[in-house]
């Protein structure tokens, strides 16, 4: 926990007031409510906690939520790098529009994204009409979950890779070229290792967001228990059955995994800072 010891070097007023507001608001809105999840999940003892948090249905839901989030984040690493590369390195008509569009998943409400994707990929939709007869149904199954999370995650990768890619200096590339490396060799041996931490950070951000995502997924997923039911939906189902402790237990598992990812992110960011130090 932060302790309030202001440095004497700052003569500005308002330290106590601003830090006071910050810690009060943080505690009231975030810390105390979040601690309720952990306390409530254990309200019926460890046995009940494990029965809810590790039930076969919950395990299937974690597997889908985290598996689909990892797959979608991996797809976004490939296409996000491509988009970031094009945005940073090339000048072409429509580049600004492309840059602005990338943030659409941040700005578009998730429920809207969910029904729009469903409209496209259901068997009557523009894309579904082509894919469903070809034996590649996407809507109403796990593939729909991956599709929705791919939509949600793209800006995380593009926005973390972009600034780092812009920093890669021409000199390193020139040096590689002078030493006889081909363009492709330069990319894989020089540029890719330099941006690897940023790419990993983007992956982690997209993964964390995807694992907890709800609004864009539930319309397209089909929501069949054991098959296409994501973990956040299972929490909602438990709540609707007034099983607060069960909902809290599943939420607990999700929170702990998110915190672990967050911790990993911190290490990644330090790794990245060291690279450019």
């Amino acid at each position, binding site marked *: 926990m*932060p*302790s309030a*010891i202001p440095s004497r*070097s*700052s003569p*500005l007023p308002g*330290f106590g*007031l*601003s*830090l006071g*507001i*910050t810690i009060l*608001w*943080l505690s009231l*809105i*975030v*810390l105390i*409510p*979040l601690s*309720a*999840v952990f306390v409530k999940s254990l309200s019926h003892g460890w046995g009940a906690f494990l029965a809810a948090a590790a039930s076969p249905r919950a395990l299937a839901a974690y597997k889908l939520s985290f598996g689909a989030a990892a797959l979608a984040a991996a797809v976004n690493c490939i296409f996000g790098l*491509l988009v970031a*590369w*094009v*945005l940073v390195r090339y000048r*072409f008509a*429509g580049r600004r529009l492309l840059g*602005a*569009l*990338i943030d*659409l998943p941040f*700005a*578009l*409400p*998730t*429920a*809207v*994204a969910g*029904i*729009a994707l469903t*409209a*496209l990929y259901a068997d009557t939709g523009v*894309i579904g009409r082509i894919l469903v007869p070809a034996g590649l149904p996407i809507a109403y199954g796990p593939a729909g979950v991956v599709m929705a999370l*791919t939509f949600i995650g793209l800006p995380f990768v593009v926005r973390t890779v972009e600034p780092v890619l812009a920093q890669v200096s*021409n000199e390193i*590339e020139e040096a590689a*070229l002078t030493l006889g490396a081909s363009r492709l060799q330069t990319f894989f041996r020089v540029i890719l290792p330099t941006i690897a931490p940023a790419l990993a950070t983007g992956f982690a951000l997209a993964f*964390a967001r995807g694992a*907890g*995502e*709800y*609004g864009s997924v539930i*319309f397209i997923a089909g929501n069949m228990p054991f098959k296409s039911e994501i973990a*956040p939906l299972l*929490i*909602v189902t438990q*709540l609707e059955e007034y099983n*607060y402790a069960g909902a809290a237990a599943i*939420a607990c598992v999700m929170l702990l995994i998110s915190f672990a*990812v967050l911790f990993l992110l911190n290490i990644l960011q330090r790794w990245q800072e060291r690279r450019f130090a």
Partner: protein
Amino acid sequence: MTAGLREPPLVKALLIAGAVGYVALMLLLPLGAVLDEAFKKGWQLWLAAVTEPDARASIKLTLLVAAIAVPLNTVFGVAAAWAIAKFDFRGKTSLVALIELPFSVSPVVSGLVFVLLFGAQGWFGPWLQDHDIGIIFALPGLVLATVFVTFPFVARQLIPLMSAQGRTDEEAALTLGASGWQTFWRVTLPNIRFGLLYGVLLCNARAMGEFGAVSVVSGHIRGETNTMPLQVEALYNDYDFVAAFAVASLLTLLAVFTLALKSALE
């Protein structure tokens, strides 16, 4: 710049085409789908759908929730950025990490925490019931969930900006005899106005569009506790697709407006 440092024109064209094609397929097409579905049966039906009483109530509720939640988080964001950017203290890094915590919490869990506190079987549930105070399935619950979800937006925009600006401007103002508040209003605020606007804009977009967190605390009473995204879901589940996409098209306009303003601010 040597020629070998650039990709051959064909490779470059292919890469651009790949990026543009991917973004068009993944992002532009869903955007078009919303508008297409909303106006499929003509604009009269669209107009009827967005002016129908329950839709109007949902629009009003969404505006009200955002009008409460966004200013709260703006004040918090400015205070947090002031403390973190202008002063040095121990535990700063952990404080920043805690502020950003809500970003890594599932929206459903963000709503759940308030049900566990204030719901019928929650910690304060019986007491609230005895005193006839409604938080869950009422406006206060919607506001709390929205504040939680949009908590970091303004702060995370301002912290790096104000850290980069340092404190020399403020120190000069104080030396010249300005009071603390005068310094804030006349020096700091003008310096950060674009960053602040940007943060408020993103905070507002998320506040109006939030679905998972408010879905858990709303109770889904049409005309009363359904915000616009919840109304979209309710209509969609009724198979009233034209109306669902009509309300969704309003939210889409909000998103496009946010992106346009954001790109103008950059």
